[in-house]
């Protein structure tokens, strides 16, 4: 089992024919992901040779889904066109859209998230590394060779590189699923969505939650853990010494209050019974200790 993805997931890649799209489609194929096609309106009907594989290119997500039964799309489309790409995928009724693209305007993310939510499409990201369930599937850019063995830990993180770092530290124990939700101010999937999915996933025994300064997602996750999560959770927060973010004016302060700092997040998680590590390495040790009981 895994969350959001499984062995049977059929994956389309929007923007596959670009440089990044090609590179990562190759890597996803090598990781065992069932890539069933690329999407590019200007290259419909063609095919792309990737190593020993031939991947068809469809003119739209709808055509790709009709031809292959795809249920996941990974979006590499550049920022000016990303909004239209996600809206198209949601209109086609795809179940999961993993948006890798970095640098998408916030107004676009707000718009495509609302659009997708109304149509029942889960958006992961934007500006995220994707989701990997070792031994099952990998949708995104998380290097599959960091942790190859399926295991009992579910990991959710805002940061791509901290996801890799923790996966590396815990590679001996292994993961049910590791999810990067993305570091942008507005993301389609939250820490809480992932906590809920891990709570319901029989293969996940312990959850590692990685957060960073900004917003109050970690504080809200802490409240959710206290009320709804029965599995042990280990946390890590980055940004104790990072330069202070921009002052957002009164309105920002009215909305977020005193939350947003690393200490506020750590305090909230600890109050919810989460063991918070001081470094990624210590966090990994805490997770292993908790798993051993």
């Amino acid at each position, binding site marked *: 089992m895994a969350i959001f993805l499984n062995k049977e997931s059929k994956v389309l890649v929007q923007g596959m024919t670009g440089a990044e799209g090609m590179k990562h489609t190759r890597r996803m194929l090598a990781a065992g992901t069932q890539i069933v096609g690329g999407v590019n309106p200007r290259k419909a009907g063609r095919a792309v040779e990737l190593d020993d594989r031939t991947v068809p290119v469809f003119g739209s997500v709808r055509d790709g889904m009709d031809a292959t039964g795809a249920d996941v799309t990974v979006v590499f489309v550049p920022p000016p066109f990303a909004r239209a790409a996600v809206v198209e995928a949601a209109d086609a009724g795809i179940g999961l859209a993993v948006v890798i693209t970095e640098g998408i305007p916030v107004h676009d993310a*707000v718009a495509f998230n609302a659009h997708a939510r109304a149509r029942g499409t889960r958006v992961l990201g934007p500006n995220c590394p994707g989701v990997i369930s070792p031994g099952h599937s990998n949708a995104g850019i998380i290097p599959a060779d960091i942790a190859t063995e399926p295991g009992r830990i579910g990991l959710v993180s805002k940061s791509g590189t901290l996801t890799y770092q923790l996966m590396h530290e815990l590679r001996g124990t292994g993961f049910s699923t590791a999810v990067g939700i993305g570091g942008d101010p507005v993301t389609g999937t939250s820490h809480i969505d992932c906590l809920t999915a891990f709570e319901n996933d029989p293969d996940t025994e312990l959850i590692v939650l990685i957060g960073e300064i900004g917003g109050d997602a970690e504080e809200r996750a802490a409240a959710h853990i206290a009320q709804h999560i029965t599995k042990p959770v280990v946390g890590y927060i980055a940004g104790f010494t*990072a330069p202070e973010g921009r002052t957002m*004016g009164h309105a920002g302060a009215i909305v977020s209050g005193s939350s947003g700092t690393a200490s506020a997040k750590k305090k909230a998680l600890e109050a919810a019974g989460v063991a918070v590590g001081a470094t990624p390495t210590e966090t990994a040790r805490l997770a292993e200790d908790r798993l051993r009981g």
Partner: protein
Amino acid sequence: MDLYEHQARQLFADHGIAVPDAEVVDDPSAVHAAAERLGGRVVVKAQVKVGGRGKAGGVKVAEDPAAAVVTARRILGMDIKGHPVRTVMLAQPVDIGEEFYAGYVLDRAAGTFLAIASAEGGMDIEEVAATRPEAVARIHVDPAEGVSEAVAARIAVAASLPPETAPVLQALWQVLTAEDALLVEVNPLVRTTDGRILALDGKVTLDDNAAFRQPRRDADSVDPHGDPLEAAAADKGLNYVRLDGEVGIIGNGAGLVMSTLDVVAGCGARPANFLDIGGGASARVMADGLTVILSDPAVKSVFVNVFGGITACDAVADGIVQALDSVHLTKPLVVRLDGNNAARGRAILDGRAHPMVQQVTTMDGAADRAARLAQGGH
């Protein structure tokens, strides 16, 4: 990117929100004439991107042009919370009848924008929000619908604002969407004693990610008074922030770099900077980054912390070697490479065998070494 008040004011005016007449001045010799043009009596307002300037003495009324010169000279010399005042705005004073508050801000939790409005504007709006939340209306805006005339009227009613503020609420939404802003705020929005609705002060934060479709941004985004090292880094497209410590830090990915700063601080040293070479960084980017950091005299040691995901560690190592060939390295460099092509990257650095470069295989161990080297240890 936060705008100065005078820039925010211009956007308001561009979208049909009335503002008092004003002029922007950075040279005291231009103040007298500007004040005369505005009618003699003016408000002199420091232009800094930080709150609390009124309480710091950065906003003063001058009764005539001569007084405006004296006041402007004093304010232009001020430092408000570390922000030197280099520009003032001279504005026509208005007779305020009532003060209101109106703004839109991104609500990250809800994933959409929130209208915030109150019939009690002014400096203490945060306190009003905290102590009497019922006095502040908060209404989520449906991104597909936006703020129509009807929605604006609804916000005004919920906040007990007079009906004639509704067009301002609608225009303010236009500022937010047309300019790709993350926050727009008018505080105070006033009704003058002669019945006009004016935006007396405002804040706007623009979304840097939308610069590609906002061509007129370029003029606003150049800050000639910024830190020279930050400017040099920006020139090379590096994500660099200068701090006040002694350990230079380079890493890949904002999360890992922030974490590296924290781990170094946990070892008792202070980070000198934040430098993220990003995902998939080339040797060139690595070399540029290292060159910027080494040119900071406050840096006593440098810690390169890379976990290669998309970034290949051999490219990072090549970049370090390139930098070593072009700068005379007098400061110790601690390198930790893991992940994608780590073995190849480590071998490249071993092959170069520079006496000032050492490799440590763990993040915590490398942070500790860099911290001790910055303090003169080994």
